[in-house]
């Protein structure tokens, strides 16, 4: 209960912070603060679109939330303190019941943000097709993340390397870099 209360408090506190558009990017290309990295959040919404998605960060006051989610792919790029960020709650579309949400902390979907890099661990996919068919999955689509960054934020990508930080190593992003170097 205590954890839930803390989370609720944390969520309320952070709600106003990342007020970014659907394909939102914080276009601040200035140098990151020490100990900070870019968190690249990729969310795919299939079926009913969630009202918001909360993450649980390494510090109580560093728990980002994502709002204004649109059907299909949504990307958010935000500077955050390095550390592990868990997807913790997915709220429904808010049309029927404001308070309905799913606790997904146990799913163990997380992103390890490394300092001075853009960290990506996968696309969080929300599938809500009626009450019977709700699922949240996490998939590595780093080629899509790379494509997105290249189009939206080439400067950031040039300054900070995109790094896959999932549970198992993925050589693809390094292969792209190496391959680009040899072209």
């Amino acid at each position: 209960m205590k954890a839930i209360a803390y989370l609720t408090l944390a969520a309320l506190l952070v709600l106003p912070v990342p007020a970014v558009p659907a394909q939102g990017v914080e276009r601040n290309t200035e140098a990151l603060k020490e100990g900070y990295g870019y968190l690249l959040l990729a969310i795919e919404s299939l079926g009913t679109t969630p009202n918001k998605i909360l993450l649980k960060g390494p510090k109580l006051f560093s728990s980002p939330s994502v709002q204004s989610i649109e059907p299909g792919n949504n990307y958010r790029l935000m500077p955050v303190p390095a550390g592990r960020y868990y997807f913790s709650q997915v709220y429904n579309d808010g049309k029927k019941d404001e308070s309905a949400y799913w606790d997904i902390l146990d799913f163990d979907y997380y992103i390890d943000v490394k300092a001075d890099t853009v960290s990506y661990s996968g696309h969080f996919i929300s599938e809500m097709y009626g009450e019977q068919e709700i699922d949240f999955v996490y998939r590595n689509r780093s080629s899509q993340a790379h494509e997105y960054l290249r189009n939206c934020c080439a400067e950031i990508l040039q300054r900070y390397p995109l790094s896959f930080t999932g549970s198992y190593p993925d050589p693809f992003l390094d292969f792209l870099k190496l391959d680009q170097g040899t072209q």
Partner: protein
Amino acid sequence: MTGFRNRLSRLCLLVAISLASASQTAIAEHDNGAAYQHAKDIFRSSIYYLVDSNPEGSLITYIERLDHGQRLMLLNLQDESLQILLNDLEGKINHYSWIDNDTLVLHEVDRDYRQSLSQLSINFIDRQLSNIYQRPLLNNAVVIDTLPYKEDRVLVKQFRESKSYIYNLNLAARNISGQLRNRFKLNRLAPAAEHWLSDTSGALRIGYVSPRHGAKKVWYRPQDSKRWSIIWEGEKRTTFRPILFEEDKQQILVLSNFQRNFVELLRFDIKTKTFVDTVLKIPGYDIESVELNKRRDDILFASYTQDGNHRRHYMNELGDFLSNSLKRDLNTPNIWVVDNSLNDKIIIALKRDGKNPGIFYLFNTRQWQLTELADTQPWLKQFQLGDTLAITSKSSDDLEIESYLTLPSNHETKKAPLIVMPHGGPISVRSSADYDPHVQYLASLGYAVLRPNFRGSSGYGREFIEAGKQQWGKLIEDDIESAVREVIAQGLVDGNKVCIYGSSYGGYSALMSAIRSPDLFKCAASYVGVTDISLMYNNDVHNSNSILNWRKDYVGDPKAQQQELMRHSPVYQAQRLTVPVFLAQGEKDRVVDKEHFYRMRHVLEKYGKTAEYLLLPDEVHGFSQLQSYYEFYSRLDAFFRKHLDLPAAAPLIQPPNEHQVSTIE
């Protein structure tokens, strides 16, 4: 009976006309119109399926597929009358079970994948169907045992909040919900088993979990005890599948390969926890499954695959005798019993082989009379389908590999171009010579199709499966090549016109084979294929430890073997490709995510390779929509023709003339 057969004849004619008329529009609208129309013909679903008799053998039910939906039909064998039991316009009926002579339980699945059970009661007055009554029973439930010794009783399993509960329902009672109270849950005090065997009273006695990638566990409960105890625990490589609880002997019949190479039917003693008897073994073959008789107290037959053909070994004299009689009367080894009435009065048999998806027969054992019930896909008679033969080759390490080569009908006058079609998996999956529309589609368009059962395939014993371990892009592809070189050496196909195509692992294999052996393959096509092995570890739905450990063991460890996995992943080897590629993917695939497609497309474009792409927006891991078959296969045929230098496909059915139409009218 004649009514049913007459109906069928009329239906065949209508089918022929509608196909022919539709082909005109299709040819006009598509680049490869003839192949597109042909896909529409070949990938149509069977009209008749789920043929079953009631316990006393007086009634036969079956599902008849319609243009929109389907219907449950009833054939009354007493007067040979045919009636519609239920119109199912949404096509929800997925399965059904006869519970007694006038009661069925329907298992329905709606468009949102919600499943439910309902009861259908049939009343007759003076042999005439007087009343049909349907009522809902349970949501999220399936039938697990029809309890033939208990009238009006059925064992069902209901899924709720990631758990399953077993109930012994009394269908004669008005109140169903009252039977779902906590104290009526048969597995209330039982371990978390997934599958159950009951005794003749309907009480649960054996429970087991048998995950493909994890350890197996089996529990037993004595008759007058609430206590369950483990009687078997085994590691992932050992098959242990309980089939039948022998109450009188306190033993269970089990399919197992414990301490042996092939899966056999064994008797396991519960008290001593040891195998005491080999009930059946088929030398050189795994027993793939067994079917219980209608009384559910003995085994009707055991199934295995020999030379690519499904074979059944009957375990009782009647089944054996009937099977032999049917084989003799119908002059084919490919006929088998699919259902029998409780009193063995009637037998329903299915004739099926590589060129025929199935004809149902009814055999009356009292009158010793055989009657054809229905051809499931009568329109296929219009096409020249291919014969299939088994081929044996020796791989690079001398391991013997069995493959199936389907030859087009004109193969005697002209050597056919070859499409090699490796199966998915690759572990514990196999190809057979049974009817396969994917194969016959290509064969009827003039291609020979080769399906190798490379190492890792099931049916050839445990050692053969284990030989496929960590052989992605290595010995498995050597096996495939050995089969290709063998059919070329035997002069069965045109060795200068060979392409390779597959789905899932087969797609991976197509790409890797083309990278490894550009001298052999002129082109490669992959549908929902794995292109980057490392993605398999970060790209799953709720990756469980047992699946990840299994993958590390059977595919490779991405932490310890990253360089090796990259050496055998098409994405990292794409620069070596010298032949054209067709890459297709279902956007909603949850097994091989579309990222595999994106990565491969990215590198192919980067290296300027000749490639075509098709992303099917509503498709999953396979084909869920008929439209996707048409789209994909007509593109695939055009791709093969282009790169094998073949003329365009010609229409396979001639358009109807006025005379034919007026005959139908």
